[in-house]
């Protein structure tokens, strides 16, 4: 197996101890197939136990390990080290969020915005005897947005969110799109005042940073524009 020494310049900051954030460099022997998260876990377990990082599933499902790598946002568990270029890899927490410690950020503003759009199926009609059916075509309409794992890479890369934490952000709006365009959902009225109100879809100005950042390749701007269209016309564009 091909092995190579690589340098990692990692953002370090413990608000309880450090007056300012700083970077610390680590050299790790990497091998073929190694992910960025593997390297960070190796550093944390063998070189510097004080390094904090949030992770869980290690297979790009939980969305915990979103971070900035060489100034672009990625999921550490999904990023193969071979795909990263440069002598030194600069690892930082998600931008514009409050740092709890090192690579761990406070996701509260992100999650608060998500709660606002009611990210669950809303129905007002009585439950059918068996189940709420959905055709293959109807499922395809929301196909890409279902993949969202709420890692926060899109929202924290958005320049509008950087300056206004009241903006729902691409992740919350994509989640809203996933339910608004779900043929079984009846929660349009319940979500309208949030999506069409202050900090709603109109705050998206097509910088496309969210599309570039999404580790699941979801076209979040498409979802936002579809919600804009739904609010404007009052009906789902299912063509």
């Amino acid at each position: 197996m091909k092995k190579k020494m690589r340098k990692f310049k990692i953002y370090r900051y413990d608000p309880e101890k450090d007056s300012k954030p700083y970077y610390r460099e680590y050299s790790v022997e990497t091998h073929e197939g190694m992910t960025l998260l593997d390297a960070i876990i190796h550093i944390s377990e063998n070189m510097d136990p004080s390094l904090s990082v949030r992770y869980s599933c290690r297979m790009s499902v939980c969305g915990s390990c979103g971070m900035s790598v060489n100034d672009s946002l990625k999921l550490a568990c999904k990023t193969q080290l071979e795909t990263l270029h440069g002598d030194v890899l600069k690892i930082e927490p998600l931008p514009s969020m409050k740092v709890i410690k090192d690579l761990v950020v406070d996701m509260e503003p992100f999650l608060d915005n998500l709660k606002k759009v009611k990210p669950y199926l809303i129905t007002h009609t009585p439950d059918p005897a068996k189940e709420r059916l959905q055709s293959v075509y109807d499922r395809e309409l929301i196909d890409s947005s279902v993949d969202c794992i709420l890692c926060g890479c899109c929202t924290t890369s958005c320049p509008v969110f950087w300056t206004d934490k009241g903006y729902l952000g691409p992740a919350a709006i994509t989640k809203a799109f996933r339910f608004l365009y779900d043929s079984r959902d009846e929660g349009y009225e319940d979500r309208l005042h949030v999506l069409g109100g202050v900090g709603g879809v109109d705050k998206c100005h097509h910088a496309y940073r969210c599309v570039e950042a999404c580790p699941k390749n979801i076209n979040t701007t498409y979802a936002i524009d579809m919600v804009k269209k739904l609010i404007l016309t009052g009906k789902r564009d299912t063509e």
Partner: protein
Amino acid sequence: MLMTDIDMSPKRYSKTALKEPGMFAWVMHRITGIAILLFFGWHVIDLVRLAYQKTITIADLQPFFTGYVTMILNGIFLGVIVFHGINGFRVILHDIFPSLNKYYKQIFWIFMILAIIGIVVTLYYMILFTSVIASS
């Protein structure tokens, strides 16, 4: 290795992000918007100033068209307006047809080429117009 004074503000990210077409357009749209606002403010003040003059001759207006400094400023301002207008159309296009979002990079470059063509054509007529005024 220890380093201090690290800037974690989004500003640093925006510098890197400027390499991306969408972010470049987003930043430039705001800068050109402010430039247009300032220019029109100046333009209105200038018009008011001229209105208080008893008579306005073509000689009063000639420096606005024939002076090198004003010509350069007009050229820059033309570029600012054309970029702002064309980019505005691009954003509206994405709003109306969300499915075009997957081609946003290609659409960005098409609109930028259109902007350059627009600037070149208008500059040509501006120079032509200026030379006519200068020779009259």
